[in-house]
Structures are given as C-alpha cells and as structure tokens.
C-alpha cells in the first residue's frame, strides 16, 4: 500500500516513513502543504496521513481542497489538537479518521487498516479465531460449540479483538471504541473488563487467550 505522510516535524516524519516501510507499506514523506499538493498530482496514493499544523497552512484546508477536486482516498489526520470540536471539524471537511498525538505505531496501523477495510471488503457477519466464534448479527459468542454468556461491554471488547486478529491493541484505541471517549483510560475500567472477559474466555477454552502488553495495551493470542 502506498502512503503519503504530511508532517512538518522532520524526526517524526522520518520515523513514520521508516515504521511504515517496516510494515510493508511504501511511504513518502513531505513537510508542507505545497509539497503535499504536488505529491498527490504526481503519484496515486492509497492513503494520506496528515498533520494539521503545517508551516504554510492548515491541514484542514488541504483536505477541503482535495475533496473538492475529487480526491477520494482515505485521509487520516494526525494532530496535537485533541478537542472534540477539532475532531468534528476534521471529519466535516472530509477526513476519514483522527489520531491524537502522542500515538503508538500500533494505533496508526490499526486505523490505517480500518480505513482501507472500510473501502474494500464487505463486512463479515461471522468472525472466527482459534476456536472462538463471534456472530456479529446475533451478538452471540461460541467457544468449541458451547455458547458463552457475555455482558454488553464484554462482547464489545471481544469483538474489537476478533476484528483485529492477533494485533496489539492500545488502551486508547479500545477505550475509544467502547466508550467513544479516551478519558476512561485514566481509570482502570478497561483492566476491570479485560480481567472479566479473560476469566470467562480462558475458563471456557482452558488456555490463555489475551496477553497484557505493559504500557501499551492488550493482544489476543
């Protein structure tokens, strides 16, 4: 996948370019609005990662121009501005998602995957992994053909992990999905629900299902 990174801070831009390359993406990095506009004219990109505070303008204006000129590929905004109004403004002008700084590479990759999936594949209604079967339509979970009773929150948690395979999911990402707010990160509410879900799943499967990645989040085995 070909990704354009628009970020004025050189060290961050270089780091992102390298990190995306390591994850089998082709990444190009530019520093200004003008360069970004040129890059899009020259080459076709699958996705744009865009910082808002650019030396020669606001990233939001750039998105507005692109959308007006018929550019339809997903745009992921990367910004230090983390208020709800800023997010809504970003989505209103046509950006597809928003990742607040500081972020983790895992979060960036997860958001990028989600954006590309949204574009291509029809959503599956049945998710299966290592003997766990999750029915998105019926909201039911089966382990080795036996049904497991999960509360709403536990089901939502499990669904996020099933959607993302064996990837590490950050606390911020999980909280945002479940509570549509990352302020819950400040409490240990997520850990509480994780420990409940873990107890139920591991009790049914008889083996470890989740791994805690300290400082970052959780991973489904």
């Amino acid at each position, binding site marked *: 996948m070909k990704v354009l990174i628009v970020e004025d*801070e050189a*060290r*961050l831009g270089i*780091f992102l370019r390298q*990190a995306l390359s390591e994850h089998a993406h082709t990444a190009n990095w530019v520093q200004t609005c003008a360069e970004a506009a040129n890059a899009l004219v020259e080459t076709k990109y699958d996705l744009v990662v865009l910082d808002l*505070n650019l030396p020669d303008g606001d990233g939001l204006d750039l998105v507005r121009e692109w959308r007006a000129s018929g550019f339809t590929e997903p745009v992921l905004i990367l910004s*230090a*501005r*983390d*208020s*709800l*109004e800023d997010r809504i403004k970003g989505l209103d002008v046509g950006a597809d998602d928003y990742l*607040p*700084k*500081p*972020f*983790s*590479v*895992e979060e960036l990759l997860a958001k990028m995957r989600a954006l590309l999936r949204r574009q291509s594949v029809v959503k599956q209604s049945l998710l299966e992994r290592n003997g766990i079967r999750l029915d998105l339509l019926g909201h039911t979970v089966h382990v080795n053909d036996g049904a497991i009773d999960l*509360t*709403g*929150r536990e089901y939502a948690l499990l669904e996020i992990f099933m959607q993302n395979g064996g990837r590490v999911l950050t*606390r911020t990402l999980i909280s945002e999905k479940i*509570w*549509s*707010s990352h*302020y*819950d*990160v*400040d*409490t*240990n*509410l997520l*850990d*509480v*629900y994780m*420990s*409940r879900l873990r107890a139920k799943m591991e009790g049914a499967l008889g083996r470890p299902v989740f791994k805690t990645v*300290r*400082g*970052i989040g959780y991973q489904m085995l």
Partner: protein
Amino acid sequence: MTMMRSIGVRLTFWYALASTVTLAILFLVGYQLLESRLTHGLDQLNEAEFRQLKAHLGPDYKTLNSKIMDDRLRDVSESGSVLFYISIEIPNSDVRFNSRNLKGRHIPDVKGKRAYSATMPGAGEVRADEFLLPPFDVAIATSSRSIRDGMREYTDVCLALLAAMLVVSLAIGLGLSRLILRPVRLIRETANRIGSDNLSERIPVSDVSDEISDLARLLNQTFDRLESAFDQVRRFSDEASHELKTPLSLIRLHAEKMLRDGDLSPVQIEAVVVQIEELARLNQIIDELLFLSRAEAKAIGLKLAYDDPGKFLDVFAQDAVALAEHSGRRFTYSHAGCDEVAFEEKWIRQVLLNVVTNAINASPRAGRIVMTSTLGAGLWRVSIEDEGPGLTGDQRERIFERFVRFGAPSSSDRGSGLGLTISRSIIQLHGGRIFAEAGTEGCGLRVTFEIPARTRPGRRRAPLRQSRAA
C-alpha cells in the same frame, strides 16, 4: 435597607429630603415673621384705642373719680367692646374703670413687660398692652384668636405644600438620578454582555471627559488587557499542545521500537515500560491542564442536550459496579424523579467516573459506595458517598484545587491530582456546582453535584428505581 443599595434610590431619597427640609425651614421662618407682624398690628390697634380713650378722658383726667370716668368712657368702651378689654386704675386706690366685657375679670399682668400675649379666662388668648397715663395704669387687651386662626390656616397650607413638595421632589429626584446614572447603566449592560465569546466588544464612550466617561475608558482598558490575556491562553493551548505532543510522540514511538526490536535485558525492558507508562501519565496531565486553561477561558463548547438522566445513570452504574467489585467494594445506586436536564453525557460521565474512582480508592475493603440521584424542583442532584476515613473541613474546602491530594497515594492510583478540578470545571460549564461534605454518619466523604433541570409541569414522577450490586 436593601433598597438603599441602589445609588438611584439613594440620590432620590437625599434630593427629596434636602428640598423638603429646606422648604420646611422657610415655612418656619415665614411663620415667625407672619406671627410677629400680625401681633404688631394688634399692638397698634390697642394703641389707637388708648389714644381715643385718652381723648375722651379730657385734659383734667388726673382729678376724675370712678363715677365720672365711667360716664366719660362708657360710650367709647361700649362701642369697642367687641374688640377691646379695657382696664384703667390708680394703683393702691379705688379709682378704677373696667370695660363691661371684662365681667369682673382682670387683664392678666406680666410684670416687667409692656406688651405681651397671655391667656384670659373666658376670652382665650389675648394681646395686652400697658400704657402710661400717670397716675393711671392703663391696660388694653385684644383677643388674638384671629391671629391663632390665621396661623393655623397658614400651618395647614404649609403642611399640604410640604407633602406636595415631597412627592414632586421624589419624582424630580428619580428622574435626575435616572439621567445621571444612564451612562453607568449603559456601562453595566455592556460589561455584562462581554464574555469570552465577544471579548472585543467595548463600552461606548462619549467625547466629553467627565467622571463617568473616564470610568468607561478605564474599564475599556481593562477589557483590552483581559482580551489579550484570553488570547494568550487560547494560543497557548494550541501551541503548547503542538509543541509538547510532537516530542512526546517521538519519545513514545522510539521507546516502543526499542521494545519491539528486542535485544534488551529484562531490567532494560522494565525501564522502557516504565518510561512508556510515565509518558502516558505526562500526556494525561498535559491534556488536563489544557482542558482547564480552555475551560477557564470559556473556550470549551458543550453540546448540551435535554434528556432524562435516568437511562444514562443506569449505563454508568454498570461500569461503576464493575469497578467497585474488581477491588472488593460494593456500589449501590438509586435514582428518583423524572425530568429533563441539559447535559453532555461524555463530560458528566467523566465527573462521575472521577468521583467514584476516588471513593473506591478511599474505601476500606468491602466498603460501600452509595450514589444517590434525585431529580425534581428544577434540580438534578447526585451524591456519591464512601465509607473511607473522610476529610477535615479544611481539606474538603481545598479538595477541588489543582494538584491537591490527601491520603496515602495507592499504587493503583493513576490520578494526576487534577481530576476534581476538572470535575468542578465541567459542572460549572453545565451551570451547576459541586461540593464535598462529611458523610451522613460523620465518617466518610460525600461529594455532591447539582445541575439545574427543566421543570415541565404535568408530567408524572417515575417511581423510585433501584439497582444494587450483588
């Protein structure tokens, strides 16, 4: 005297008092002058009568006895008896003449005075004058009732005028104070309107330089300074978040890369993980400080929607029960009343989560955290009470200040010391208040917030709803 707190009322009052009192003093002086003038008139009348008597007595008056005197004077005194009481006598002898209307009474004598007012039995007040006609003592008195009556009428008219003056001066004073205070009212209205959203508005200042326009100019200068301070805060929020968060991203990304790339000893891994955890904490503190600076600059817009908070509380209670059970505490919750409150769920949830987390941390094992929500009489009130050691009155006052923490911090405490400060900001943005009290039985702490509700008549109260942790 709350009325007197208004300058307009005070001005009116003093104006009316001053003008009425001035008029009253003038009337009083007028009274004195008029009375002495009228009295002087009576004295002159008496004197004229005396001259007439003297003429009737004739030049040989010194030799007359009572009988002849009576003959000579009777006519004069009879004709003047409507007006005058007359008494003529030679002291220490029986030669005397008394006008008939005296009827055996005497004209009162005031020693040492030639003209005086006195009261005569049966005749009321009289004005008496003594004249010298040696060897006779002549006293002529006239009833002064006419003066009394005149003065009484004068007083009545004066009182009526004073009352009218009071009313008129109140009206004039009120009008005057309105006129004088109009620029002040204009200043107040404009200053009231100026908030974070229209800090650039200024009080209109007239070209004339007087005390009030000077005040307006001074206020406008203050608003200038305020505006630039607010702008700085707003810009600081944006700049600080950008300047701080980009390096934070880099530190975090590099730390995670170190973990992923391997080749680290367990001790090094632990050190890097601690770094990442502290970075998250630092990021949280930055976010919270930025939130507070924006909230104080009123740069945060709430998306308030009218809703019944009952459903929202049910959802929150699930999370609270989970949190409490996880650390071996119990959480109970009750909600009563049905109404609509303007609030934004996300923010109120953050307040509740914050207060409940504090309560759980403060509670002893198996302790109970009680959340009571009542809705009614135009108010939504939520109290959260724990069974912990509680706080002293002084500590309860300070608990909402920045970075203030009491009690030993536990290892599970991720708090920055800003949670309650933010909670207070959020509740204030909702137009409510939050405060801490001692628990019901003297132990523990109860944190309560109140948000105004919209009372809609004609809606039935929902029955008490109760959900309980196992």
